[in-house]
């Protein structure tokens, strides 16, 4: 019985691998194989793989290697993200814990959160100019909003029974917050860290497309201008993989830190 199940799973795994291979083969066929698409409309998988390897040590055509672009992007994204988290988590907790503050700040916050982070780019560029600061500020805003929303709802979801138990045993307001509410909000806070990271990374790419002189977004925008679509696709792959790695790192830390399940 168990063996049968294993065979079936292997069959589906085989099907997935086969599906990917067919996909890549079709991609190759319409580009290099039959030449339906020229490389300035859709580069072949071979060319993309070649550029991917070359871009690690070659600075052409945009003046920096892949590693330098990646480093520049990570620096900005993580800088803005960390400050966003440091400000956002306490702010969300504070908003959720204090009823009056909640009622005053909530409507303002609900308005601000509907503004996509990227829309702030123009404001920041006008205020501080193109560079590290404007991008970091834009990312700070978009990461902070996600952090506030999640830590806020984490605290709000604290079970009232747990709070009552705490009160019965004579816990002060501060103890209720730090010993009951915050620990039970931790899973949500980590969801927030993950969501915020995703939105920080996306916003960064957008900001780099718009106003930048280095970074992955800048690289793909430059490559697009000279129809080097192989580099564009390499950039997209690096953006996707980096985003996925960052998100799994956060999830890994979350799993290590949070003891006990939800519910």
């Amino acid at each position: 019985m168990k063996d049968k199940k294993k065979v079936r799973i292997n069959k589906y795994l085989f099907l997935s691998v086969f599906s990917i291979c067919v996909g890549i083969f079709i991609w190759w066929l319409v580009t290099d194989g039959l030449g339906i698409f020229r490389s300035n409309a859709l580069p072949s998988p071979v060319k993309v793989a070649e550029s991917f390897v070359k871009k690690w040590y070659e600075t052409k055509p945009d003046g920096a290697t892949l590693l330098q672009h990646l480093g520049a992007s990570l620096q900005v994204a993580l800088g803005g993200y960390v400050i966003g988290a440091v400000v956002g988590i306490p702010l969300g907790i504070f908003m959720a814990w204090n009823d009056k503050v909640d009622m005053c700040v909530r409507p303002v916050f609900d308005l601000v959160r509907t503004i996509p982070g990227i829309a702030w780019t123009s404001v920041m560029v006008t205020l501080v100019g193109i560079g590290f600061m404007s991008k970091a500020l834009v990312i700070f805003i978009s990461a902070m909003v996600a952090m506030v929303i999640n830590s806020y709802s984490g605290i709000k979801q604290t079970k009232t029974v747990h709070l009552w138990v705490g009160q019965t045993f004579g816990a002060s307001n501060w103890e209720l917050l730090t010993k009951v509410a915050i620990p039970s909000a931790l899973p949500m806070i980590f969801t927030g860290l993950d969501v915020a990271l995703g939105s920080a990374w996306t916003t960064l790419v957008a900001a780099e497309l718009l106003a930048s002189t280095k970074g992955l977004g800048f690289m793909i925008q430059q490559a697009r201008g000279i129809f080097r679509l192989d580099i564009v696709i390499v950039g997209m792959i690096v953006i996707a993989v980096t985003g996925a790695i960052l998100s799994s790192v956060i999830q890994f830390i979350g799993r290590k830190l949070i003891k006990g399940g939800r519910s």
Partner: protein
Amino acid sequence: MGEKQKRVFFGAIGIFVFLCIWYVATALTALGTVMPDPITVFTGFFTAFVEPIGTHSMTMHILISLRRMLVPYIAGGVLGVLVGILMGWYRVADAILMPYIQMIRPIPPIAWIPLSIVWFGFSEGSKYFLIFLACFFTIALTTYNGVHSVDETLVRAARMLGAKDNQLFTSIVLPTTVPYIFSGLQVALGSAWATIVAAEMIRSSEGVGWLIISGQETGDMTQIMVGIVAIALTGLLITSIMRGVESKLCAWTVRGK
């Protein structure tokens, strides 16, 4: 004061305080030299409805952006739901399509902008393509998760009582999946709105994103802020409409909570 009046009262105070801080900050500090005060911004916003910015009035800018967003949103939604159900229900479809979805989904829709420009030019097509990408994967995956969350015992019970596949689908799978579909639609709506703003900022000659970027190009901070206000209010409007539709159509899950 009832709970609701209290909420409105404190909410009004909050917004008022926010506007006051904004006003004072621009009136008294150096920020005022680059940043317009709230009164200028809101008058600018309302006069834009009668006096056109660029070639269109504010109503047209908002409608153009909304049309750009809604057409591919609906297409992506319909296709996403179909593909999601297909993958959720048939293991073969799952095995074939899932690797592609898992590979393409981590790419932010915005990162497709350079490619979409090359493939579709600066036409509406490139924007439709981006929004479609932004919606399709999210909705397909949430629908897929919805189909997978169907209670196995219910399916077996129905099978035992002689339900056919289509009965099984309409009376068990669909009702379980609909709330998931709606949460997917909700998330996709937000990311579609953010994507269209970004796409318009990078390439377009009208729409709310263009308002911001042309403000930046001419150094007109008021126009940037007017654009941001338009984006915030329209975003708020569409998400509340969506939430209203959801609470009407998924009344049973809301009540069930």
